[in-house]
């Protein structure tokens, strides 16, 4: 690790203000950032720890939705009675991230702000049509994830919470990378009041939806309805663990299983 200045601000404004230094880095759970720093693959001038900011953790029920603070850890989402009741598939998904010690540190805000192409949360946020709250505004899930490790967040913008609407049926199916435990392919299917949404992580540069499957599932919410819908492998990720062709195939398989698991 290179040396840096460590700050632990106690107000959002202070934290956001420090981001005027473009080489400052926010650290939430640190589950991606700290390993990167250990490998000397980044050299931030300042590390701004969000851990002492008030009001960023916790899970609250808000009418027909659940609001999860940006610094809420995966383990808390996984065990939350509220999440289990309102969006049970999200609680289950949180239990599939990393490993137990990672889930005890990693946060929802950190995960979605990082937008790793194989992270689990982006699929949940998009499929569940969540809304991302920042210190400046609210951003719809469909507008939030913009590309490989890229989001709509502007400099100085910090995720404060994510609001998930109550969902009728949803399920997340993850096909793990046997080494890293990231998703080779993860498919989150949700049937909400706003329609059926199918969001895929791991397969592309960033989370994406599958309109053909959504249409077919809107007509008939059965696994059979999408069994013959293949997504093109053009542009999908390819690495030593899985080719683009295999990933494309897995999207259909995982989507089918997610629908079947919705019961």
């Amino acid at each position, binding site marked *: 690790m290179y040396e840096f200045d460590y700050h632990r601000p106690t107000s959002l404004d202070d934290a956001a203000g420090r981001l005027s230094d473009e080489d400052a880095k926010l650290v939430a759970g640190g589950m991606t950032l700290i390993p990167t720093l250990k490998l000397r693959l980044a050299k931030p001038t300042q590390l701004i720890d969000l851990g002492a900011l008030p009001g960023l953790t916790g899970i609250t029920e808000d009418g027909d939705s659940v609001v999860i603070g940006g610094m809420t850890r995966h383990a808390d989402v996984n065990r939350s009675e509220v999440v289990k009741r309102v969006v049970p598939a999200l609680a289950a998904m949180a239990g599939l991230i990393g490993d137990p010690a990672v889930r005890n540190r990693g946060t929802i805000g950190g995960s979605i702000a990082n937008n790793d192409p194989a992270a689990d949360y982006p699929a949940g946020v998009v499929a569940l049509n969540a809304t991302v709250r920042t210190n400046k505004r609210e951003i719809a899930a469909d507008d939030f994830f913009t590309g490989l490790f890229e989001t709509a967040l502007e400099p100085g913008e910090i995720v404060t919470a994510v609001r998930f609407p109550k969902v009728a049926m949803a399920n997340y199916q993850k096909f793990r990378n046997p080494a890293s435990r990231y998703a080779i392919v993860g498919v989150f299917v949700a049937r909400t009041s706003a329609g059926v949404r199918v969001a895929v992580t791991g397969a592309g540069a960033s989370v994406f939806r599958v309109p053909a499957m959504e249409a077919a599932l809107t007509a008939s919410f059965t696994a059979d309805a999408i069994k013959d819908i293949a997504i093109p492998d053009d542009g999908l*990720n390819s690495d030593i663990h899985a080719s683009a062709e295999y990933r494309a195939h897995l999207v259909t398989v995982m989507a089918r299983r997610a629908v079947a698991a919705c019961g």
Partner: protein
Amino acid sequence: MEMKGERRIPAPRQLVWERLNDPETLKGCIPGCESIEKISDTEFTAKVVARVGPVKASFSGKVTLSDLDPPSGYTISGEGTGGVAGFAKGSATVALEEDGAETVLRYGAQGQVGGKLAQIGSRLIDATARKMADEFFTRFVGAMSPESATGS
């Protein structure tokens, strides 16, 4: 890995060709390019900061233009070393075709990384190279839009 792409540019081929050889245009199009210095008509030194998620690595190296076939195309290659992160190199063969007042740009690109980036981040090499190539040509098309084509 190999990537292919195609862009339609609302500008005549000769102008597109000239811009493809212009260091300032290249600087604006190479993602993360902080500086570019001309050594000869076909050689430049460049400093590029690559940001991929939490990774930020500063590469210094050179950009070379070869297989020049004005105004139909060339091969643009870059290679740089990024200190502890390792090294990266890539090249794209660019072909320009006239289509009325417009130009169709086709490219085939490839990239390689070595050192720690390859050792630790092999799952991301492909997607990153694709993104860089895509961004380069998208920015280039942007730089060739009517207002910027005449206004620069």
